[in-house]
C-alpha cells in the first residue's frame, strides 16, 4: 500500500477497509469478549509507545530543568574549574572537536572504500568476503568499552605506542564507528539500481569510472546520512575514552599530538561532574548535557532532512 495520498489508492484503501469490516461483522460474529480483548490490546500498544516517548521527554526536560540555571556563554568559553560557578566546558568542547575532526578524516575514506569493495567488487560466494561481512556486523555490536581496551593495549601501548594523546582517542573512535559507516554506505550503494551501472559499462566506462561518476553521486545522500549518524555516536561516546587517558582534570586547551599534556572530551567531563555529590556541580553536568544534546539534535535533524530532501526513488 502506498503511503502517499493518491486518491485512487485512497479509494482502494477505503473499499478494502469497508469490505474488511463488513466481512468481520458478518463472519466473525465478534463476541463482546473479542471486542474487549481488541480494546485491551490496543490500549497495551498505546501504553508501550507512550512509555518510550514519555521516557525520552522526561530525560530532555530533566536535563533542561536541572541545567537551565547554568546556561550562559561562560559555559562554553570557560575552562573547567574547581569553583562550580566558574566551571565551563571549553577544553572539553575543543577536545571533542579535535576528536571528531580526526575521526571524520579517517572514517570517511576507509568507510566508503570498504563499502564500495563489499558492494561493487566482492564476490559474495567467496568465504573471505563472507567473513568480512559477518565480522563487520559483529564489530557494530562489540561493546564500546572493549574498543577502549583495544585502544589501551594496541594504540596507546603495544605496537603503535602513541601514549595518552588525543589522537589515540580519535583512532579508537574511528574503529568504533567504522562498522556503522560501512553498513549505512553499503545500503546506500545497494539502492542504486544495477541498470545505472550496466548502462555506464556498456558505454565503455571502466568499473572505477562507473563507480566514481555514476554510483557514488547517486549514493552520496545516504552515505552522508550514515556518516552524520556515526559522528553523532562518536560525539556522545564516553566509555572507551575513560580508558584512553581522557579522565584527567584539564584546564588548558588540548594539543592532539602531545601525549603529556592531558585532554578530555565533552561526555567524559559530564561523567566526571555527574558523579560528584554536590548539587551545584551536578547542575554544571546537566548544562553540559544540554549543550551536547543540542549539538546532536541539530546533527540528527540535518541527517533526517538530508535523507528526505535527496532521497531518490528509482
Amino acid at each position, binding site marked *: 500500500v502506498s503511503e502517499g495520498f493518491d486518491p485512487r489508492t485512497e479509494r482502494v484503501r477505503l473499499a478494502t477497509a469497508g469490505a474488511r469490516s463488513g466481512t468481520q461483522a458478518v463472519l466473525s460474529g465478534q463476541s463482546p469478549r473479542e471486542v474487549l480483548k481488541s480494546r485491551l490490546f490496543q490500549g497495551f500498544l498505546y501504553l508501550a509507545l507512550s512509555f518510550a516517548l514519555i521516557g525520552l521527554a522526561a530525560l530532555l526536560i530533566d536535563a533542561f530543568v536541572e541545567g537551565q540555571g547554568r546556561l550562559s556563554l561562560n559555559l562554553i568559553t570557560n575552562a573547567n574549574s574547581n569553583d562550580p560557578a566558574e566551571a565551563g566546558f571549553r577544553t572539553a568542547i575543543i577536545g571533542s572537536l579535535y576528536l571528531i575532526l580526526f575521526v571524520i578524516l579517517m572514517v570517511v575514506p576507509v568507510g566508503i572504500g570498504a563499502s564500495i569493495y563489499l558492494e561493487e567488487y566482492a564476490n559474495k560466494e567467496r568465504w573471505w568476503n563472507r567473513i568480512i561481512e559477518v565480522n563487520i*556486523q559483529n564489530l557494530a555490536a562489540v561493546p564500546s568499552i572493549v574498543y577502549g581496551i583495544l585502544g589501551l*593495549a594496541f594504540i596507546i601501548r603495544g605496537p603503535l605506542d602513541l601514549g595518552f594523546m588525543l589522537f589515540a582517542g580519535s583512532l579508537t573512535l574511528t574503529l568504533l564507528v567504522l562498522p556503522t559507516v560501512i553498513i549505512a554506505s553499503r545500503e546506500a550503494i545497494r539502492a542504486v539500481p544495477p541498470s545505472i551501472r550496466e548502462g555506464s559499462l556498456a558505454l565503455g566506462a571502466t568499473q572505477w569510472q562507473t563507480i566514481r561518476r555514476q554510483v557514488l553521486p547517486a549514493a552520496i545522500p545516504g552515505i552522508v546520512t550514515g556518516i552524520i549518524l556515526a559522528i553523532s555516536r562518536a560525539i556522545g561516546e564516553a566509555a572507551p575514552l575513560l580508558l584512553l587517558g581522557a579522565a584527567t582534570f584539564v584546564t588548558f586547551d588540548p594539543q592532539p599530538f602531545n601525549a603529556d599534556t592531558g585532554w578530555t572530551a565533552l561526555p567524559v567531563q559530564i561523567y566526571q561532574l555527574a558523579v560528584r555529590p554536590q548539587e551545584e556541580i551536578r547542575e554544571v553536568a546537566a548544562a553540559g548535557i544540554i549543550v551536547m544534546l543540542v549539538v546532536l539534535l541539530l546533527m540528527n535533524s540535518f541527517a533526517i532532512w538530508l535523507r528526505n530532501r535527496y532521497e531518490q526513488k528509482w
Partner: protein
Amino acid sequence: VEARDIGVSSPVGLARRLEAPSRRWGEKAIFAALALCAALSVITTTAIVISLIGPALGFFGEVSPGDFFLKSEWAPAQELFGVLPLVVGTLNVVLWGLLVAVPVGLGAAIYLSEYAHPRVRKVVKPVLEVLAGIPTVAIGFFGVSLVTPLLQDIWPGEFLGGPPGFFNAGAAALCIGLMIVPIISSISEDAMRAVPGGLREGAYAMGATKRRVATRVVFPAALSGIVASIVLAFSRAVGETMIVLLVAGNTPNLTLNPVEPIQAMTAFIGVTATGDIATGTIEYDTVFAVGLLLFAITLVANLISIRLVRKYREVYE
C-alpha cells in the same frame, strides 16, 4: 575521431579487440586499496582478540580458571578473583531492563507496523531514532537525577527489602531499558513490515480481527527478526558502561535484587582502567580477563542475532 582510436583498424582488418587496450594498472590499484579498507575490519577484530588474550593468559597463569568462574567473591585488592558477582550484577541490570524493554519495544513495533496511520508513523519513527541517538552518559545522568529519586518515592514499603539506595540496579535497569527500546522496536518493525501483505489479507478474508492478525499471523511470521532484535538488545545492554557506572554503583554484589547496588563487568573495567595503571600487574590483567569474558558473551549473542536476521531476510525479501 580516427578509426584507429576506437580499435577498428587492427592488423587483421575487421576483427575488433574487445579487451582493454592497456593493462589497467590504475583499476587494479584501486581494487587493492578498497580491499584493504574492507580488510581493516578483520584486522580490528584480530587486534581486539590479541590485545585481550595476551594479558588474559597472564592473568590465568596466576589465577586458576576454576577460581575465576566459580568462586563467588570479587575483591581484586584482597586477591579474591571470583567473577560471578560481576556477571550476576550485569545480569541483574540486563534482565530487569529486558523485562521492561521487550514489551515496550514490541508494543511500539506492532503499533508502528500494523496500527499506525502513515502520518503518525512518519512522526513517531524519527522520535524513536532520536531516543536511539541519546548518549548513554545523558541517560545515566537522568537515572541519577530523576529515576532513582522517583523509585525511592514510590517504592511500596519494604517490598524486596526496602526502597532502593542512591546506587541501585533497578533504576539502572529502567535506564538500560529505555536505551534498548529503539533497538527492539526498529528491528522488530522491519521484520514485521517484511511479512508479505498476502498473509494478512488471507487472515482478514477468513474473518480474523486486527488483533488476531497482528498476534497470530504477523508476529509468528516475523519471529526470527523479533528474537534477533531482543538478542541484539541483550548484547548492547551487557556492553553498556556509562549507565551502570553512574546509576548502579561499584559494589560487587551477587544478587538479582533490583534495590541493591551492584558492579557490572563494564563498570569494573571502566573504573579500574581509568588513569595510569601499571602494565604487567595482576590488577592490569584483571581488566583484560573481564574484558575477554565480556567480548565472548557479546560475540555469541551477536552471532545468534546476525543469523536470525539473515533468516527472515531470506524468507521474505
